[in-house]
């Protein structure tokens, strides 16, 4: 281990040494920018690299570059010494928001695409879950507030994405949509008036639609994560998202094409 900034810590074989020995290798390299703790600490320089024997399903080497690499190397050291299986390492409990969790995520990276791991947005998901639970509890306490079940309920009336008056009886566009310039969003956001308009349009949405469009389009969470946070089905969520987006588009259209 080398006490540089960031630190470098290695245990076991390097990738090249393992290859020279003719071991059938699996290599997993996880940038620290996928580890929630590193994101939260705004210190994402570095990576965790794990090397495993595919046939034995055991670690043969670990190499970590990062501010706390020296602390993190301890777990792979034990895993190599005692022949702990990669699957067991990937399944073992690691507290959320610790750098140690990075070892677990790196072990999972052997079999999963790192970009699909929850790591990157884990912190946000966790915070939103807390906020949602809070809203649910408050909803139960305060009878006047909207019951939280409206999140999963669809609105009773049929809401088309685009008003029927915009189509001919055969379903073609009557006044067709106009083309928006390439820089429309950027230009729009320059005006505080437009911003207020979008905020207003979002505020006007029914609770479920508002929750879904906020999490998906403003906060950029995955569909699956949103299902978990709001405890609604995928289909339900897509309908809510569809209706919400259609209304925001329509509000923008009215704003852009005012006479």
């Amino acid at each position, binding site marked *: 281990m080398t006490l540089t900034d960031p630190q470098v810590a290695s245990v076991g074989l390097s990738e090249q040494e393992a290859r020279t020995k003719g071991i059938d290798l699996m290599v997993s390299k996880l940038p620290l920018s996928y580890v929630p703790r590193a994101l939260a600490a705004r210190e994402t320089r570095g990576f965790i690299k794990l090397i495993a024997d595919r046939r034995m399903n055991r670690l043969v080497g670990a190499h970590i570059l990062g501010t706390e690499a020296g602390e993190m190397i301890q777990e792979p050291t034990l895993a190599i010494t005692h022949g702990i299986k990669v699957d067991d390492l990937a399944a073992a409990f690691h507290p959320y928001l610790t750098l140690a969790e990075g070892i677990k995520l790196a072990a999972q990276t052997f079999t999963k695409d790192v970009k699909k791991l929850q790591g990157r947005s884990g912190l946000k998901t966790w915070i939103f879950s807390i906020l949602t639970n*809070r809203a649910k509890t408050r909803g139960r306490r305060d009878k006047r507030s909207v019951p939280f079940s409206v999140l999963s309920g669809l609105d009773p009336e049929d809401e088309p994405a685009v008003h029927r008056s915009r189509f001919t009886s055969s379903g073609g566009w009557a006044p067709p*949509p106009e083309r928006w310039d390439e820089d429309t969003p950027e230009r729009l956001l320059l005006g505080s008036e437009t911003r207020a308009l979008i905020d207003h349009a979002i505020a006007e949405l029914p609770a479920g639609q508002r929750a879904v469009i906020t999490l998906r389009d403003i906060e950029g969470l995955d569909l699956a994560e949103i299902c978990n946070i709001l405890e609604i089905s995928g289909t339900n969520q897509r309908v809510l998202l569809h209706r919400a987006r259609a209304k925001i588009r329509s509000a923008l259209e009215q704003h852009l094409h005012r006479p």
Partner: protein
Amino acid sequence: MLTCQELTELVTDYLENRMSFMDRLRFRVHIGMCRHCRAYLDQMRKTIRTLGELSAEPIPPAIRDELLARFRDWKR
């Protein structure tokens, strides 16, 4: 053949990649032929992009305190 009105109801499934191969194909055939629906799809993409550029609301102090408290509890 898909009508323009029907297409507007499928845009979200299309953009979120939740369509069967055949439905996707039908959607794309329509988009390829109909410039009005191309404009609509483009408006929808720009709407989503605009939403993505809204900065997040600041966290209200009460909620921030609760979050910090939970961080501390969880560390124990």
